[in-house]
């Protein structure tokens, strides 16, 4: 027999189309059986209590990246967070920080995608493609593994303290995407492409406080990518100083 426990969900409500009404928490009382996720409860609240509540969701299985939000002060995907995991009967939900609220838990991700597009997020090839696959060793494939796992949910972008003070900073996800291609043995982008991130808006902006790693629901470590890109830039500069040939 499953017994339901009573929970209070306090959800931050705001509608950008009604800017005169400031953001405010609204409380919903709901009975929840063990094993339910925050997303499952959000769906029940919208269905059964308040049809005006807005949040994004799709896959329910932590792969599509739609439902990133702040849950009891922690950034995570609502679909993979168990309601019971906090040991409290109150769950507080807020939208992802560092982006403008469109409505309730839905934020405008345009700046996030703008940064993503800046890093040329695709394989760059100079050589002609072979008839079959471009060969890549298991070790070379392994090098990009963690960055390939990124689901672009923007948990890291919301957690980044640098973005909160400098919205022009590219942010963890975009830099991780760049490193995913830089480290790919098949990528042939010109070495000087890294110059585009060789500044305070790019790799040197990072404070190295590792909040992005903490926030990532897929165990990606964006800081590793930033360290990797910094190393590559320093190495390139040293080569330049020693008068070695540049590509």
């Amino acid at each position, binding site marked *: 027999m499953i017994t339901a426990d009573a929970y209070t969900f306090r959800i931050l409500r705001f509608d950008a189309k009604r800017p005169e009404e400031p953001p405010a928490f609204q409380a919903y009382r709901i009975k929840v059986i063990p094993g339910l996720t925050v997303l499952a409860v959000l769906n029940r609240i919208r269905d059964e209590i308040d049809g005006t509540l807005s949040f994004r969701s*799709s896959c329910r299985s932590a792969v599509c990246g739609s439902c990133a939000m702040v849950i009891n002060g922690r950034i995570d995907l609502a679909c993979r967070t168990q309601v019971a995991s906090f040991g409290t009967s109150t769950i507080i939900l807020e939208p992802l920080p560092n982006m403008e609220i469109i409505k309730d838990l839905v934020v405008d991700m345009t700046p996030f995608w703008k940064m993503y597009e800046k890093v040329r997020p695709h394989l760059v090839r100079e050589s002609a493609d072979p008839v079959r696959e471009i060969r890549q060793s298991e070790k070379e*494939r392994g090098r990009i593994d963690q960055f390939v796992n990124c689901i672009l949910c923007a948990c890291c972008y919301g957690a980044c303290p640098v973005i909160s003070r400098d919205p022009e900073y590219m942010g963890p996800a975009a830099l991780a995407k760049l490193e995913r291609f830089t480290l790919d043995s098949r990528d042939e982008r010109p070495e000087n492409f890294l110059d585009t991130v060789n500044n305070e808006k790019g790799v040197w902006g990072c404070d190295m406080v590792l909040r992005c790693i903490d926030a990532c629901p897929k165990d990606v470590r964006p800081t590793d990518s930033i360290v990797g890109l910094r190393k590559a830039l320093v190495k390139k500069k040293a080569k330049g100083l020693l008068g070695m040939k540049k590509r």
Partner: protein
Amino acid sequence: MDMLSHDVLIVGGGLAGLRCAVGLCDKYDVALISKVHPIRSHSIAAQGGINAALANNPDARDDTWEKHAFDTVKGSDYLADQDAVEIMCREAPEIVYEMEHWGCPFSRFPDGSIAQRPFGGAGYPRTCYSTDITGHVLLNTLYERAVFKGVKVYPEWHVTALATEDESCHGVIAFDLINGVIMPIRAKATLFATGGYGRVYFYSTNALINTGSGIGIAYKAGVPVKDMEFVQFHPTCLIGTNILMTEACRGEGGYLFNNRGERFMERYAPKAMELAPRDIVSRSIQTEINEGRGFDHPLGRYIRLDLRHLGGKKILERLPGIRKICIDFIGIDPVNEPIPIMPCQHYSMGGIDTDAAGATPVRGFYAAGECACVSVHGANRLGGNSLLDTIVFGKLAAGSIDAYLSGGGAVPDEKAVLRLAGDMEKKISGLVSGGKEKTFALHAELARTMSANVGIFRRQDEMEQALQDIARVRERYRGAGVSSPSRHMNYELMNAIELEYMLEVAHTIALGALLREESRGAHSRRDFTKRDDEKWLKHTIARRGADGSPDTSFRGVAITRYQPMERVY
């Protein structure tokens, strides 16, 4: 009312839609409309892999596209059109290489070639993969390609109706969710790549966005649908959340056990065992559960999927995503414990009736991917063939649209689009003025009857019950209303609009299933237990009649070189 205009409209930002868009955007004014950001599309959730006879696996050096085609046809229980299957399997290696050249990070064999694993119903290990996130890497690669090509995207726009008049398509009515505005869009050619209808069922692996409304919209606009009764139930889905546990779990060597500790697949498919096709494994699991050999759990009866003998290293290397899902969603580490699974709705073999180039009987209207029925999957799709289907037919549809437009195409009729926009305005006004029926409750009722009465095993009286239930929900839907009159960011309103189309989809599924008096592939009748090639080696076509009810007809199956045989594994 404002109106937008494009040469080509692509509806759906998953693999099929993106592949079609990148194939056309250099030459035409192409716009892609997606109700979620394209990267959130359900293609992202595919896990196990994509089939192509590359012959990279040392155990598959003599694999060929013809063998792939044979496995596909046999898997389909001979309902697939063999000319279309041949096209898909011949295109497969080129498609996989193209995705690799565009950056797709496939897993590799020690020689640096693309890794390939065994999959259900396949005579050779030919499923190319990237650990257990193959859909994720393919979708990212195609989205990256679309960004590189500068494809115009309208994200979070819902298409709510299709404008067809005089057997031609003139465009769509879209709804901009963020601004709450109805927007008619006219186009010379429109492609639907809107995915499957999993949410018509109560137990489904599908994402919440997979309502099948695209299929319902096309059907309501007079486009025929085909083979709707063929619904795939995936054998291994987590109990409770019904999250997919990829077929690769068994491809990598996982076992299925009942409560007596038996590897029961021995009784149903002694040679293929756990790697029999999905329809057979799902029926076997359901039979074990029905006959009392399942395990009990508050969330439902289940069977065990055991990976423990594979060892931690292999699980971490090949199935890391599965392990993480199990830990996050049910608190089980498959390295140490078996996974509790049950069969759930997973895939739509049927869909919008298209030819092998994505064209439908309505001029200027095309479909590709899961929403379409070519048919390459027939009565049962093989694992690893759905990702392939999306990209191959997304590409071929681009070619077909190009040929249509190069030949002049048609001039879309603005008035037809505007008239329909007027209808949509009335419909939305009605919903926001607040009827008393709540659509979430109606949806639940629909989904429950579909899971209970048009499921893995089917019987006449149950399907008749489903049809009655659907009719009752449809009647109640006339009194549906939403809580808030404001139209922007109103997900309840979007759900209410989609439910109308879900009802149409469910109706065609249940009706097709009732009509087809045989058992073939995923369509398994308790009252007609045998395949009947004499009467039923044909496709079911449903077209909406003038009074709103389906007119059904049938079309023969294209057979080229594989004569129907008994299907034994």
